[in-house]
């Protein structure tokens, strides 16, 4: 029996199935029941919410703004599965519509913060030196400020355009993303394995694809997933103050606010929206945690 040569050994190890970073991560994610549950919930809820116009017309029979003043607020019954509010509007329809708005705010707000954060962090980490010191000092200062106050001011003063809402919210959340991306870029710059890969003769594209991008994408995916629920919570906070989405539009935050006001008389108006929003936030958090475990992301900002 001829002993295996060194080259053969390397080839054998490389050829092993599941050696890819993403496949490993996916496998770990699949084993995480909570994360899968979260994923399922998010997918189902999103689908329901975005299909809201169709569902309202064909399944539920009411739209979110359709009033029935004669009917008034009724608890869940056959005609209205989740009940109605004092203006006779069907709660289920409003919940789905509100979900569409809340999820959209969550996604777009996160997208804004992601964009700002990634660019800022990547530039700072890549360029390094004094620019990095300056940029990170700015982040440190901004991190300390009660940004929310400014968002409140912004929303109060400049009207409650929903687009402004995305920008304002994104402006609060980008700081953490910037820090994380910068941290990753800096540590990647110094990694010996990059030099090792080059020394082994791996093509630059291969290095980029198999080493750099997975290391950057990992934390980004994790924190993006965890930012969405923060944004949704923030939007609901603003709605409570009357600064979020405005009528006739609605969001879960608005529904919860209205429900909280009438909690004693018409509890269903608070319970269902609160439950649905909490469920969504749960699921997103579990999913984000699942990503973090699967991609083996260690959050260290120092």
């Amino acid at each position: 029996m001829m002993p295996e040569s060194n080259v053969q050994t390397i080839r054998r190890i490389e050829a092993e199935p599941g050696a890819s970073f993403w496949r490993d991560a996916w496998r770990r994610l699949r084993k995480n029941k909570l994360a899968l549950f979260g994923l399922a919930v998010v997918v189902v809820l999103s689908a329901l919410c975005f299909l809201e116009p169709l569902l309202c017309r064909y399944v539920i029979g009411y739209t979110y703004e359709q009033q029935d003043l004669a009917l008034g607020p009724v608890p869940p019954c056959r005609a209205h599965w989740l009940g109605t509010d004092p203006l006779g509007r069907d709660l289920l329809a409003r919940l789905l519509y509100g979900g569409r708005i809340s999820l959209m705010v969550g996604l777009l707000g996160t997208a804004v913060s992601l964009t700002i954060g990634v660019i800022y962090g990547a530039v700072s980490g890549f360029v390094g030196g004094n620019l990095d010191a300056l940029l990170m000092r700015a982040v440190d200062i901004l991190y300390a400020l009660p940004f929310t106050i400014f968002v409140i001011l912004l929303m109060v003063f400049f009207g409650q355009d929903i687009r402004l809402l995305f920008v304002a919210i994104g402006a609060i959340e980008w700081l953490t993303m910037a820090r994380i991306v910068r941290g990753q870029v800096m540590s990647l710059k110094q990694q010996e394995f990059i030099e090792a890969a080059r020394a082994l003769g791996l093509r630059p594209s291969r290095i980029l694809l198999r080493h750099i991008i997975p290391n950057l994408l990992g934390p980004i995916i994790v924190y993006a997933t965890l930012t969405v629920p923060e944004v949704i919570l923030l939007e609901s906070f603003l709605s409570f103050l009357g600064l979020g989405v405005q009528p006739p539009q609605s969001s879960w935050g608005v529904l919860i606010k209205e429900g909280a006001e009438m909690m004693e008389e018409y509890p269903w108006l608070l319970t269902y929206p609160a439950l649905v929003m909490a469920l969504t936030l749960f699921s997103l958090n579990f999913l984000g945690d699942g990503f973090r475990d699967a991609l083996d992301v260690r959050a260290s900002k120092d």
Partner: protein
Amino acid sequence: MPLLSVNNLSVSFDTRAGVARAVRDVSFQIEPGRTLGIVGESGSGKSVTCYSLMGLLPQPPGRIEAGQAVFDGVDLLHISRRQLNQIRGRRIAMVFQDPMTSLNPYLRVGDQLIEPLLIHQKITRASARKRALDLLDEVGIPDAAHRIGMYPHEFSGGMRQRVMIAMALITKPDLLIADEPTTALDVTVQAQILELMQKMRAELGMAVILISHDLGIVSGFCDHVIVMYAGRVMESARTEELFYQTRHPYTRALEKSIPALQAKGRELYTIAGGPPDPFHPLPGCPFAPRCDHAVDACAAAEAAPLEVAPAHLSACLRVQKENLQI
């Protein structure tokens, strides 16, 4: 009467990829005041063996399947945590491979140094500190009074390892286990650390187990050596005998690989092939696929280490049966 007697130790790890059998039926002994070297490649199970003795294996996923480790009449593997804590740090001390990560970066060196004294002896902080200062001097840390208040990251690699050694020896243990103490250090510093360990050993009269992948280091330091491969003992003998009367092909291969012993200008000798898969051990001798002397019988059945000469064990089937000359 041996100070420590390890009998038939087997340790496994339950991982996502399966069960890895890291240590298989390992036995060795060490007398008081003697030195034992454990040599092997990465993954040979040498470190896991000693971590199990000290109760430092994370018990899931680690699992001690069988065996005993009798230290001064007490089986370390079968006592309570409380009893183990009375032995660890006081009678058996350990020095680890990477002094940067093995010292607590958030605490001053002095605090970590006196800790074993505070744990195991009724002693005042002031006396403990005095003892620590003396010890720092002995291990060769200059300006000890000032440095004792510093943090680990303010020391160089060699100095950190000296601190680790001081920390291990401060309670005057009976046995010191040193896991690759010089691997993370520069070559010049390596020699100093080894010298220091020799000196302290002579002063304190303690036994030392030195774990290393470097046959050269072990041969300079130890009276007796065991060679491990794939979790098993391949050969065990007094140092001189191991080198001059090698009785296992793996040991011979290791010797041949030492660069300093090879002729200049020739290609370096390497052992062909790679280490075996711990998740799927093959039947028979684990070294057989790479062995120049292997025959079919080697791949069929494993040979447990047997005495092939006085106090000289070998796990090579052919050496045992045919007295094969290596």
